[in-house]
């Protein structure tokens, strides 16, 4: 668990604080996304958690320990760190790059070797071919994967990720995001994730922390932020497709009518209750129908209608008065 208590940071030679009295808490096993325009302070906050920057005032604790009481190098070895520019050491092979933190922690050689192989497989790289290469011989997507593998090498409970998928094209990015979310389901790391892309934030985050000009504007789950944006800044940040984003995060079971009977026949359309409403909508448009049956496994538990979706959107995505 990471706690920030009224953290401010003013860089030398400036009057305006880059981070202004920000407090929040990141719970264990969650992905917390810091999102906002460039210069909002999200990267500075991230870098204060592993002491690459020191706060001007306030207190940061990691698992209850004040980080200022720890040796920065020792602290950083327990926190995975991924940056957009990746920063692989150009004179080291991929294997050596991934071994970096375990070596700093003096793991035995055989354990490091086994761990490196395991990690490269985990991030979808072939240890036999990629392991011996140098960073300049890798594609952008491969480098990003190595960056993630390197950060996870010593199995740190906490990871800081600064636009980790920012340097690859959109197709690879979506692929990497999906893979990472799948990994996270098993790994249950505590992750602070920085992005300026609201779509990425909504997709990756268990919690969002929305920042502007060094101040924390709003925090909450993606659905909370989408349905109740705190102000016009957040509303603008969320974009024009706020309603569609909400449908992507709302499960069919939330909007279905449990009491209505669904006339079942072999041609009727069914959808699993945990699927997002967006998928049901797609199905309705494709088949030109105005209701689908919602089921849990084999059993039909309700009906989702075109009208209920429409009503829901107009209710939750209404502009603020």
């Amino acid at each position, binding site marked *: 668990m990471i706690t920030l208590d009224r953290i401010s940071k003013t860089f030398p030679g400036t009057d305006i604080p880059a981070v202004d009295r920000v407090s929040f808490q990141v719970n264990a096993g969650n992905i917390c996304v810091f999102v906002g325009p460039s210069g909002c302070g999200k990267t500075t906050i991230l870098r204060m958690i592993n002491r*690459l920057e020191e706060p001007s005032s306030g207190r940061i604790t990691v698992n209850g320990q004040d980080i200022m009481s720890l040796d920065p*190098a020792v602290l950083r070895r327990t926190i995975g*760190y991924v940056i957009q520019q*990746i920063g692989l050491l*150009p004179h080291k092979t991929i294997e050596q790059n991934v071994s970096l*933190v375990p070596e700093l922690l003096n793991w035995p050689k055989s354990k490091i070797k086994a761990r490196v192989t395991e990690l490269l497989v985990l991030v979808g790289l072939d240890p036999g071919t990629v392991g011996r290469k*140098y960073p300049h011989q890798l594609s952008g997507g491969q480098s990003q994967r190595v960056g993630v593998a390197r950060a996870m090498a010593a199995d740190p409970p906490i990871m800081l990720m600064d636009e980790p998928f920012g340097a690859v094209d959109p197709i690879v990015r979506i692929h990497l995001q999906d893979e990472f979310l799948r990994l996270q389901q098993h790994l249950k790391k505590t992750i602070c994730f920085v992005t300026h892309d609201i779509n990425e934030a909504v997709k990756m985050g268990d919690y969002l922390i929305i920042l502007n000009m060094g101040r924390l504007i709003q925090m909450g789950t993606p659905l909370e932020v989408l349905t109740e944006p705190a102000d016009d800044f957040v509303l603008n940040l969320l974009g024009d497709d706020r309603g569609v984003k909400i449908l992507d995060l709302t499960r069919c079971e939330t909007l279905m009518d449990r009491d209505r009977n669904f006339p079942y026949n072999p041609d009727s359309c069914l959808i699993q209750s945990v699927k997002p409403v967006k998928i049901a909508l797609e199905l309705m448009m494709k088949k030109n129908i105005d209701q689908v049956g919602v089921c849990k496994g084999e059993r039909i538990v309700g009906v989702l209608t075109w009208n209920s979706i429409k009503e829901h959107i107009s209710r939750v995505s209404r502009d603020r008065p």
Partner: protein
Amino acid sequence: MNFDLDIFMDALTQRAPQYLVEHLQLVVIPLSIAAFIALSAGIILTRPGFRHLADRVMVLFNAGQTIPPLAVIAIFFPFLGLGYGPAILALTIYALLPISRNTIAAVSAVPREVLDAARGMGMTSWQVLCRVELPLSVPTIMAGIRTSAVLTVSTAVLAALVGGKGMGAIIFAGINFFRPELVLAGTIYIGAMAVAMERVIAFVEWLISPAHLK
């Protein structure tokens, strides 16, 4: 002035070789001292606390380069007298600049994100210096040492003027006695030594260069 092949052959095979070791000392000793000073200065001046001093120290080193070696010897003459010592000192000052300039340039050119990642992984400042900054700087630093070495081989000829011996002895003798054979013989050795030094250092550079550049 006519060219006597016998005198030339005699100078080339008998007289000049005896100065080779002396001359080599006049190159290797100042070069080693200069490399040590310049590397230390270059590393210190790229540390966060001293970076603002880098420009001023470079001005100092640049000044060292503009003073002719003979003038350096003249300046230190009252303290050190003539001979070997002042010659070594002048040559050291002369060799400082290319190495320190290249060290500062090389260490400053290590990509920011690489340093950021290295620190972020939990390397101490010392580990970042030894495992990241210096290995990546080797090619540029070695280029500076090569430049200095070639420069010192030729400048060391002047040492003979202040009694510092070396290959300059035979060259200046040739000039004083109007014997181009001696000058040519000495010059051939100087040229050969410059080329040899350059190749040897290039080989060392290849040996210690980061693996991805080989």
